[in-house]
């Protein structure tokens, strides 16, 4: 399975699990209301959900912390997110402890500390995420965020204050803390959403902010219910909290999967992430929001006949419908902008890539032309001065000596041209069997071996299946390089043969200087050369030839040894 398929499959599983688990939680809650027993089996299931779902969230967040890097998520930001999740988990546990074990409902309680700390930690996490991106945040989006935050803050604070003016000061402060903290957190959330819709597309943060929006909706609904004394344990509004915990768990799962994918799959991942966001992002958001809100409304309506003040129900329903409409419009607008920006950016990136490829090609051609020009000038210089020496003093000895120099220079020039042609021309393999000794002899016959250099052939003479013409180029280049190294001081070139069940292994070793560590990794790259003469294509051609033979070529130091491994059973 290739990486593209596996990323695609992950996204399918991830998306289906998210929808399925959300629906499951909603189902448990909905069925719960059809039982009028004081403590039904569904009560205990929904109770368990408060431990299990936040518990899974905390576990997954701690698991996520183990990863060195989650794409697009600063480590510090992730730490604060995890702390926030831990706070919510603790808050839920403390709340349950009071409610079901001690059967009391104290206010303020330890749960309040955790409930208030959690969104503050989320705020810090978002600020850490947004800080390096501050240049991309427009003033307009900050103003819009502050306005929306005030829209939420002012009515909630006023109502909270009016309804609680009989309580003591500390209690009032704590009660007021909830809407204030939520309104403050809403600012970075809206900025993040606006940023994600413009440039930084990252599903992790989309889900985190989505979860937080659901949670703010839950907090606000709870506040109104509490103020009108209409909240009771396992109230449908609790669903919203559970849904936000679920969304966060899935965002962390997504982040972890993201960090596991190797860097070469990054492009595939980005492609799928963008596709997924474009196609399903808005729909998923609206489905989750609307299903949750409709379920809450239906459940409340069902109970209203028996228990609820209908006046309050009207107010609450219109409040929820208003939130639903605002969020839906916001998401549809954001999605449209995102799609438009995506199209623009894709075509912009394509243009830049094409320009880059062109520039790279021209730069490579320029580099090669300049190398060739430089390389040709040296042998031309030798030919010029040798020619003048012959003209000036045409004795037999001078002519013979300078003719040799001219011949060597012509060979050099031919070698440079062949190097370029060998690299540029990609030929089909014509496999035939040839003995190793014949290959080596033919290579050596085409080379001028200076005095002081000895070449030792292997004792073994196996028959090797290869493209003979290509292998002569391969051997020529490796041996030619070794000769150039040894030209000044002389030395040995030793060719060895080894084999295993599947491969022929040919080792070409020289007694020259070792290759420096900083260049050994680049030695097979095209246009790389440490010699001031040479196209930098010889060893690149060797790699190309060996690759065509489905083999490998590598180099080791102490002594310098080129190791060529070619499969015995080769097919054209």
């Amino acid at each position, binding site marked *: 399975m290739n990486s593209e398929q596996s990323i695609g499959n992950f996204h399918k599983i991830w998306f289906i699990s998210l929808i399925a688990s959300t629906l499951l939680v909603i189902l448990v809650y909905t069925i719960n209301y059809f039982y009028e027993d004081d403590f039904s089996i569904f009560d205990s299931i929904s109770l368990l959900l408060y431990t299990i779902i936040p518990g899974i969230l905390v576990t997954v967040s701690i698991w996520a912390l183990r990863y060195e890097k989650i794409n697009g998520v600063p480590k510090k930001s992730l730490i604060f997110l995890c702390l926030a999740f831990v706070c919510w988990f603790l808050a839920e546990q403390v709340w349950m402890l009071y409610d079901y074990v001690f059967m009391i409902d104290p206010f303020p309680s330890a749960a309040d500390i955790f409930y208030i700390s959690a969104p503050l930690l989320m705020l810090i996490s978002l600020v850490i995420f947004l800080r390096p991106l501050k240049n991309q945040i427009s003033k307009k989006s900050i103003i819009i965020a502050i306005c929306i935050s005030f829209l939420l803050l002012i009515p909630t604070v006023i109502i909270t204050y009016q309804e609680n003016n009989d309580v003591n000061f500390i209690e009032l402060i704590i009660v007021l803390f909830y809407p204030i903290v939520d309104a403050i957190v809403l600012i970075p959330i809206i900025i993040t959403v606006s940023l994600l819709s413009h440039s930084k597309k990252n599903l992790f943060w989309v889900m985190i902010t989505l979860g937080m929006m659901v949670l703010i909706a839950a907090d606000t609904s709870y506040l109104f219910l509490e103020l009108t004394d209409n909240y009771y344990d396992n109230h449908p509004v609790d669903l919203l909290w559970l849904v936000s915990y679920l969304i966060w768990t899935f965002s962390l799962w997504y982040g972890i999967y993201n960090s596991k994918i190797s860097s070469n799959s990054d492009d595939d991942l980005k492609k799928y992430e963008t596709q997924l966001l474009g196609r399903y992002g808005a729909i998923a958001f609206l489905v989750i929001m609307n299903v949750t809100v409709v379920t809450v409304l239906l459940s409340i309506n069902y109970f209203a006949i028996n228990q609820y003040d209908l006046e309050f129900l009207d107010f609450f329903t219109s409040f929820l419908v208003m939130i639903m409409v605002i969020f839906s419009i916001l998401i549809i607008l954001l999605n449209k902008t995102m799609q438009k920006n995506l199209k623009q950016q894709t075509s912009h990136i394509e243009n830049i890539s094409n320009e880059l490829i062109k520039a790279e090609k021209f730069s490579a051609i320029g580099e090669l032309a*300049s190398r060739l020009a430089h390389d040709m000038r040296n042998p031309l210089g030798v030919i010029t*001065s040798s020619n003048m020496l012959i003209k000036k003093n045409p004795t037999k000895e001078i002519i013979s000596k*300078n003719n040799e120099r001219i011949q060597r220079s012509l060979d050099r020039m031919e070698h440079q041209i062949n190097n370029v042609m060998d690299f540029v021309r990609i030929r089909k393999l014509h496999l035939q069997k040839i003995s190793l000794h014949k290959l080596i002899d033919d290579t050596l016959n085409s080379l001028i071996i200076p005095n002081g250099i000895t070449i030792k052939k292997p004792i073994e003479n196996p028959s090797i299946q290869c493209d003979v013409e290509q292998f002569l180029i391969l051997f020529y280049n490796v041996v030619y390089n070794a000769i150039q190294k040894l030209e000044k001081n002389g030395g040995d070139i030793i060719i060895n043969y080894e084999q295993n069940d599947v491969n022929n292994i040919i080792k070409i070793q020289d007694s020259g200087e070792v290759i420096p560590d900083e260049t050994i990794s680049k030695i097979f790259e095209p246009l790389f050369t440490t010699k001031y003469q040479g196209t930098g294509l010889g060893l690149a051609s060797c790699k190309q030839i060996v690759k065509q033979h489905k083999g490998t070529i590598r180099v080791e130091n102490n002594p310098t040894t080129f190791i060529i491994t070619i499969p015995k059973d080769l097919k054209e």
Partner: protein
Amino acid sequence: MKSAVLVDDEIDLVESIQEFLETEDIKIVATGNNGQEAVELCIKHLPDFLILDLGMPKFDGIHALEKLSEKNSSIKVIIMTGLLDEEHKANLNRFKIDASFTKPTSPIAIADFIKNN
């Protein structure tokens, strides 16, 4: 008789130019293959001229020019290079260069310059 040190990494080129200049009564006191050798040979032999290639492995011609200018050398420098691009030209502006020739250099031109300077 004027003396010179000749440094280039192309052995055949060094030998052929050396032989030609010697027929023109210019004494090549030593030859080398890289920038470091150029510096050492100049300090040792104190020639009138240094005929220097720029692109050489390990220590290039620029290295030799830097070291010699640090030592306030009065040796006249003749550059003989395969490629004199903008980068090299900018690099060379820092030093006192008496003549520069692009390869393939005519040894007659080098001999004439040495004789007249």
